[in-house]
């Protein structure tokens, strides 16, 4: 299959020396002989990035003064490289606010001026309106909205539109998409079984709400990493702290619980580092980071903040649930107790509990009990702990979960004969029906400290069973650290947004820029380290980061500032004159044409055809998909959402990790296994097949045809283009459509328009 890709462009600007690429080879050639793995004269060893960075100043001085190496001075070219090798990589240096009165346009113009390039003119008003509607809300303007904007000829018309869009409830939906990729949000838990996480959407709603309310990014950070540790934490803050509940898990039989826990800790640590610091700390799981100043020890020190954290589900009734639940709770309890008594499970339950506890303590004596305990400990969350508590000490939720497991799945332990004699299968059915009749309260997923006092150890070569030195919670030594001891996730979160931390503001602003231009000022928005790319406009990035901090970390003012800049408003039309000077448009002499993300393609088709259900927030839905897609998955059933909820925005599509909705896969939604800062944009033939043949898009084309036909005969062509593209047809397009119309009717035209590149693109 021939597949074409949008090739995003690498920066060609080369600045100071890159440690791994430029410096290390020199050190290896000239210094390792005496200061390397075998010999360490003067106790100086330079063969790790960390150690070399520490000795940076000495190396530069001594080689510069020609005192080292003793065999004779280095050639001038190498000395130049070493001089350009700064103490710390650029991203670790303090934010340097450019002097004087600055604006985005001035800082962009300064670079363009150096290359004698002129910026592009402003895009026409229709293009601009469609662009800013899509960028701020993800929804293209309706013909009426477009007309209203065009009719407003006042000087501040565009700025007024921006204000309206920033205040739209759809703003939060649009910007949540990027954050949910970072949070590796999904509606299922990953792993072999990939069971649903029915409460996950509560976190998504929190994100949408926080973005709409323009929650300052420092608070946004603190609540997501440590909302549970805030004094008098509210339910919302605890939902926010579910950020790290979106880690994948495993319930595969025979996998050690401790190993699963370790892998989750790895993910939480790496994700925190990449989302807030733009650092690939995961490299330091096994060894000191080769290129960035992150020793292995620092990685585990960072992990230590998460070590004693449990996954917890909280009752969090939705509006209307609590009252009804209280009314029937007693009745439910009564009936459940009656059923358990009727089936006389008490004795066998105790027998099974004893057997499982015995297997936990004495593995290898009775294979069937080993397997039974193993399966229980995987399928029941925190089940091991429950089993160790006396029944009277367990919460109702814990006891119910244990009993439900026993009734459903204890046959391997107690033996099939006993299981059948007690008719436990029948009881399981009845308990399930009872649960359906009296639904439990809705829950939310969050984290909580467990006070276990577990110590964190460096893992040698990253192997979880191979424990090295003990470490205390601490942040990266290469960055400014507070004087006192750090203990909790709250300390960590506050440090991430402390004014002296140079990374967080840069990383966050870069992602906002990326969302509005298709690429960040640092193109590798996930990696600000030495192996990532350098900023194309370092001064602009620092100025934005500084303004962001000074403005109280509010995101909307920064978005406003960017979208009202002349740089943003430029036409995106290709410029032949830039073809050789700046083919990848790193200097931003024009805007970019960007293919819409998967979710917005579907939203746009549904909106143009009038089918879109614009309800904001709420649980995930499952639109129809072809039979067999779900078969790829181990355990789930794709129960189609039947009502109008299935026309809700793509953001709300149930994200089943191991068998994602095909449109999402075909249009580059990451599988949400790990955090993702930047989606690829592919262009494959599976995409046209999806848009031409998926019944959802056929339905949209039919609905759109009906809307077109509502217009008087002579105006239908105009209407069709206005609905889909926000503009009228050109004479050439008019000819094409009119040639097509007699044979295919408005349905064919609607279908074709919904497949045009322009429709799928933010220009």
């Amino acid at each position, binding site marked *: *299959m*021939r*597949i*074409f*890709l*949008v*090739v995003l*462009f*690498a920066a*060609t600007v080369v600045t100071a020396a890159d440690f791994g690429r430029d410096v290390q080879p020199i050190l290896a050639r000239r210094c390792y002989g005496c200061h390397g793995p075998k010999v360490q004269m003067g106790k100086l060893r330079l063969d790790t990035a960390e150690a070399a960075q520490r000795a940076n100043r000495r190396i530069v001085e001594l080689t510069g003064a020609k005192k080292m190496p003793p065999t004779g001075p280095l050639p001038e070219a190498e000395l130049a490289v070493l001089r350009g090798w700064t103490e710390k990589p650029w991203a670790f240096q303090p934010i340097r606010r450019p002097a004087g009165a600055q604006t985005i346009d001035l800082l962009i113009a300064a670079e363009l001026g150096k290359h004698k390039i002129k910026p592009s003119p402003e895009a026409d008003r229709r293009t601009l309106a469609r662009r800013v509607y899509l960028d701020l809300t993800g929804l293209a303007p309706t013909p009426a909205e477009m007309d209203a904007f065009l009719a407003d000829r006042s000087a501040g018309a565009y700025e007024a539109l921006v204000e309206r869009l920033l205040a739209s409830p759809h703003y939060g939906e649009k910007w949540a998409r990027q954050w949910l990729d970072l949070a590796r949000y999904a509606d299922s838990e990953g*792993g072999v079984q990939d069971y649903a996480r029915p409460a996950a959407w509560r976190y998504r709603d929190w994100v949408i709400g926080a973005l709409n309310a323009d929650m300052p990014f420092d608070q946004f950070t603190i609540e997501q990493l440590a909302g549970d540790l805030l004094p008098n934490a509210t339910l919302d803050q605890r939902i926010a702290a579910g950020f790290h509940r979106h880690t*994948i898990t*495993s319930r595969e*039989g*025979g996998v050690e619980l401790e190993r699963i826990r370790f892998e989750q800790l790895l993910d939480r640590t790496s994700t925190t580092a*990449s989302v807030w610091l733009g650092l690939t700390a*995961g*490299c330091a799981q096994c060894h000191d980071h080769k290129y*960035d100043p992150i020793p292995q020890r620092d990685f585990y020190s960072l992990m230590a903040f998460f070590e004693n954290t449990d996954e917890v589900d909280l009752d969090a009734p939705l509006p209307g649930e609590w009252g009804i639940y209280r009314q029937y709770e007693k009745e439910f309890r009564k009936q459940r107790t009656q059923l358990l008594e009727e089936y006389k499970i008490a004795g066998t339950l105790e027998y099974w509990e004893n057997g499982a506890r015995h297997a936990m303590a004495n593995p*290898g004596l009775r*294979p*069937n009990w*080993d*397997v039974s305990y193993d399966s229980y400990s995987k399928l029941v969350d925190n089940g091991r702990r429950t089993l160790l508590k006396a029944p009277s000490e367990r919460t109702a939720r814990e006891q119910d979960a244990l009993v439900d497991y026993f009734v459903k799945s204890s046959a*391997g332990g107690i033996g099939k004969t006993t299981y059948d004699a007690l008719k436990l299968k029948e009881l399981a059915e009845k308990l399930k029906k009872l649960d359906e009749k009296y639904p439990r309260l809705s829950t939310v997923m969050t984290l909580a400290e467990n006070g276990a006092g577990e110590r964190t150890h460096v893992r040698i070569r990253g192997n979880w069973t191979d424990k090295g030195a003990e470490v205390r919670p601490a942040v990266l030594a290469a960055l400014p650290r507070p004087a006192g001891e750090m203990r909790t996730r709250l300390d960590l979160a506050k440090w991430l947004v402390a004014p002296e931390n140079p990374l967080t503001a840069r990383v966050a602003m870069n992602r906002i820029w990326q969302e509005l231009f298709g690429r960040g000022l640092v193109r590798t928005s*996930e990696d600000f380290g*030495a*192996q*990532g790319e350098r900023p194309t406009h370092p001064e602009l990035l620092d100025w934005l980061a500084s303004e962001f901090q000074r403005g109280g970390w509010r995101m909307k003012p920064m978005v406003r500032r960017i979208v009202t800049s002349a740089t943003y408003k430029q036409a995106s*039309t290709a410029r032949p004159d830039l*073809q050789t000077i700046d*083919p990848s448009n790193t200097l931003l002499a024009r805007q970019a044409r960007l*293919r819409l993300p998967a979710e917005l393609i579907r939203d746009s088709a549904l909106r143009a055809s009038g089918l879109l259900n614009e309800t904001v927030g709420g649980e995930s839905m499952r639109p129809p998909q*072809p*039979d*067999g897609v779900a078969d790829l998955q*181990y355990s789930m059933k794709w129960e189609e959402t039947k009502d109008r909820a299935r026309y809700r925005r793509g953001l709300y599509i149930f994200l089943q990790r191991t*068998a994602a909705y*095909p449109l999402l*896969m075909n249009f580059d939604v990451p*599988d949400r296994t*790990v955090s993702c800062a930047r989606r*690829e944009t*592919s*262009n494959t033939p599976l995409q*046209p*097949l*999806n848009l*031409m*043949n998926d*019944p959802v898009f056929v339905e949209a084309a039919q609905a759109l045809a009906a809307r077109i036909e509502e217009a008087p005969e002579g105006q239908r062509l105009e209407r069709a283009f206005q609905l889909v593209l926000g503009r009228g047809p050109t004479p050439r397009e008019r000819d094409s459509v009119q040639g*097509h119309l007699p044979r*295919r009717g408005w349905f*064919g035209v609607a279908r*074709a*328009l919904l*497949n*045009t*590149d322009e429709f799928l*693109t933010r220009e």
Partner: protein
Amino acid sequence: MGGLGLAGLPGLLAAEDPFTPKTPHFPAKAKNLIFLYMEGAPSQIDLLDPKPALTKWHGQSLPPSMTKDFKFAFIKPNAKVLGCRRPFAKYGQSGAEFSDWISAWKPIADEMCIVRSMRTDAFNHQPADLILFTGHMLPGRPTLGSWVLYGLGSESRNLPGFVVLSTGKNNMSQAAQWTSGFLPSSHQGVPFRRTGDPVLYLSTPKGITAGEQAEDFQLVNELNRARLDTTGDREIASRIASYEMAARMQLSTPELLELGKETAATRAAYGVDQEPTKAFGTNCLMARRLVERGVRVVMVTHSSWDQHTELEKDLKKNCDITAGPVAALIQDLKQRGMLDSTMVVWGGEFGRTPLGDFRNAEEAKAGRDHHASCFTMWAAGGGIRGGVTIGKTDELGMNVVEDPVHVNDLQATILHCLGFDHTRLTYRHMGRDFRLTDVRGEVVRKMLA
């Protein structure tokens, strides 16, 4: 590797086609790969690595000194030994040795390069699936097929370059078989569906004729051409090309599926018309047809091999389903002159223990647990030396004693047969050059022709 690295190459213009066939690092025999993935882990002890000494130990625990370094998924090191009841025989001129349940492989014995000394790092399915296909136990990296597609491009203009076909129950590895990980998602394997269109949305929707479909495709392209002229954005040219290709895929895929055009003898050899071979045999035949049409990598997965219990019954059943079609595939490729350019690999994610899994109280229903320390795989065709058996395990099948081959070594060898130095087929991601073999892997010279 021009143009492959989305991230790595500055200054390229848009619309680069990453799947234009590419020249590997050095000339190589194999151009295609078929991986017969026996998911769940077939018992090497009962199929390919005879251990008569187990009979003597049957029903007893081994002395702790022999098991102290072992860890298993479900059973503990004190578990009792389960003897093997299968008779083994030697086949072909090379005298390849395997058990009666797979005697259907007799005619291909001299093509097989049997490796009895495979090892892996994980004894649980999901991490082991991941390491076998992505080189590493944690999720997020590209699978073997995606790497090959990334390195070689595709010869097919109308079909996906990497296809996954599957049968059997308890498919647990799922994404490990087709994930493109951090490679662009266009490198992902396309799982052909078992029902309906093999590729999603391949059929023209109900109520629309082929002619109408062609008209609509044409209008899309006309409108896109008009826009291309206005904006000058070469991405639109790529969009037009992908629409043209999608239209061709719609036309050519039905031909791929016309198995009726195969001769009666071929159909009979693969067993496509009778049970129990029908589904798996069809996939094997489809694999040959895909490779014939230029598809670079085909995974043929059968996932019912996790015999913790009922080893006797279920292992035989799986052999009855798969052994005949596998032999037919190798012979068919050879007869058509395709075996030299097609590397075929057979095996699971790990092996099974000589110790029994007695979770079921009835001894007749015993099975074996997962075993990462040693297992058997085999390869044939493109670049592989047939008619040899490599590696040895100890008398009881607990460990490798000669020529250990780690799964990363197997990956290095597969890439070598396809013309790649596995240390140089890399992709820059999160600041690091990643490769399939992670930080390990040595080409197994003894496997090479």
